[in-house]
């Protein structure tokens, strides 16, 4: 637990145990109420478990916000001799550390969530795909799996129910794109981790061609709580269209960087003030939310509460929940350059618009950084971004232009004056 981040909130659900129990002692998790959900689950009908999760309104926390219950239903309904569940722990979105904290601080909460999901969809094999850099997470989760097996929470005939489930860790190879679910699946099959053309989608045809659920660590960590306390409890937390709590990470120019858990009933400005002790080094100029491909939020936008509905209305997303604060001494162009360099490196190169586009974007932003950019360069940049938003096959190519387009919209004058 050497790398645990600072936890800024106190009224927590997912983070409740973190720092308060020894993650390597399953007894402590059990004493805190752990594995009650699994006990309840194995006495339930599989479809009933899915219904509870659907009713709760839980949405995926890996960035795409897809309703979790609906996804599970696809796999539940699919006919196959083998189904899989994969927990996506490839966390590579800059500014995002939540999955690491959840794995290192409370691994049994995650294992319990995965096992419940496996039961519901009928998977007998599961994997946690952890990014290779996270050695501590890998060791902690491996140790926790072993303990769960010894206690009969994993393996054959779980809790005497006749349900068998085998869980193991797969290690990522240091490629950001492997967080995309189909690239992740290819990587697990021993191939280059490049996104597949969709459809078919993984819930119907995934790992080794079998129906496969891919869910984020945070998504699955919510599941035991929903099963124990019920879908209504969950729906009553926060705004009705964005139920439940969400983990956010504060970084950049804030006085207190760290991780926090809150229902979606606070504005980002309030989060920065309440949990981050305010902006450091000046006033807030903008915040990029949801990692490198996240949208840029102006101070006015930060004042709003961004429920799921409002996000849809304004076509923005808070993605993984990282809040990257920039004060008024920061240059937008410098910020864009770091982001552009990131994507130039991380584009997997499978589709031409993304491979060439990320490279060209960096070149043009570089011109502005050197003070050589012109009005026509900026127009070209915008056009390029609009093309990229439409053409590539995966979310990287489509979303990496978001911050660039936002910056052009909100900070055109500053970019041209650079």
């Amino acid at each position, binding site marked *: 637990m050497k790398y645990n981040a600072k936890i800024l909130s106190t009224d927590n659900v997912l983070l409740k145990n973190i720092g308060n129990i020894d993650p390597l002692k399953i007894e402590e998790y059990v004493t805190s109420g752990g594995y009650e959900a699994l006990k309840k689950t194995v006495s339930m009908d599989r479809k009933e478990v899915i219904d509870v999760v659907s009713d709760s309104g839980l949405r995926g926390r890996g960035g795409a916000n897809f309703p979790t219950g609906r996804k599970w239903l696809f796999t539940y309904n699919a006919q196959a001799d083998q189904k899989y569940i994969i927990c996506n722990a490839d966390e590579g*979105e*800059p500014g995002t550390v939540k999955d690491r904290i959840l794995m290192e601080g409370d691994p049994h909460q995650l294992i319990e969530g995965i096992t419940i999901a496996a039961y519901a969809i009928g998977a007998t094999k599961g994997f946690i795909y952890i990014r290779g850099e996270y050695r501590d997470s890998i060791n902690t989760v491996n140790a926790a799996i072993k303990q769960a097996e010894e206690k009969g929470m994993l393996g054959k005939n779980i809790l005497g129910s006749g349900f068998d489930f085998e869980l193991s860790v797969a290690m990522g190879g240091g490629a950001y794109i492997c967080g995309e679910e189909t690239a992740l699946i290819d990587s697990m099959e*021993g191939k280059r981790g490049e996104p597949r053309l969709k459809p078919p989608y993984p819930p119907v045809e995934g790992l080794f061609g079998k129906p496969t659920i891919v869910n984020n660590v945070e998504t699955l960590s919510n599941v035991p709580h929903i099963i124990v306390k019920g879908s209504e409890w969950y729906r009553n937390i926060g705004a009705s269209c964005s139920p439940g709590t969400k983990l956010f*990470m504060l970084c950049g120019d804030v006085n207190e960087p*760290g991780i926090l858990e809150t229902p979606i009933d606070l504005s980002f400005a309030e989060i920065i003030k309440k949990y981050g002790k305010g902006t450091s080094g000046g006033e807030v100029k903008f915040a990029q939310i949801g990692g490198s491909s996240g949208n840029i939020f102006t101070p006015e936008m930060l004042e709003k509460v961004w429920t799921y509905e409002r996000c849809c209305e304004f076509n923005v997303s808070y993605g993984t929940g990282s809040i990257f604060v920039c004060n008024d001494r920061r240059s937008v162009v410098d910020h864009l350059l770091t982001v552009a360099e990131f994507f130039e490196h991380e584009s997997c190169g499978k589709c031409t618009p993304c491979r060439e586009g990320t490279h060209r974007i960096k070149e043009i932003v570089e011109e502005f950084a050197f003070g050589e950019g012109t009005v026509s360069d900026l127009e070209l940049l915008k056009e390029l971004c609009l093309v990229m938003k439409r053409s590539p096959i995966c979310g990287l190519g489509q979303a990496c232009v978001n911050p660039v387009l936002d910056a052009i919209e909100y900070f055109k004058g500053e970019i041209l004056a650079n």
Partner: protein
Amino acid sequence: MECRDGNLVAFIERSVAKYGTGRENLLPVLRDVNEEFGYVSGAAFIEISRLMDISIGEIHGVASFYSFINEENKGNYIIRLCKTISCDMAGKDKIEKTLERELGIKFGESTKDGLFALEYANCMGLCDKGPAMLVNSQLYDSLTPESVLDVISEYRRNIR
């Protein structure tokens, strides 16, 4: 061609036996070899190809895709400094300069004694504790010019 190194062959045989010969075990095997020898040599490709029945071209395609697999011997200690935004804002530049000055090489190069190599990496999930870097698989966070020099000294001592 490099000669067949008995040590390497035995290691790969053990690794393949541990994971199995299925295609899905290619990455774990590559990683094992990389960790043990610091890189995956041409000779290693040949052995893996023979034992797992995957063409060398295929293996190369996979190995070159993942930044964790080295295809050449870069150095005993590969230092990967995070150049992504949080670390950049937290003072990555100072660490960068300190490392270059101390080792007498630029990023992308290795020291003559083969001890260290300097590379950049993208975000490694220590954003709230930047600047951060990896030395082989060991993470270091909250770096300062002083602490990074301590890390280097420690690795130098280790070698002796």
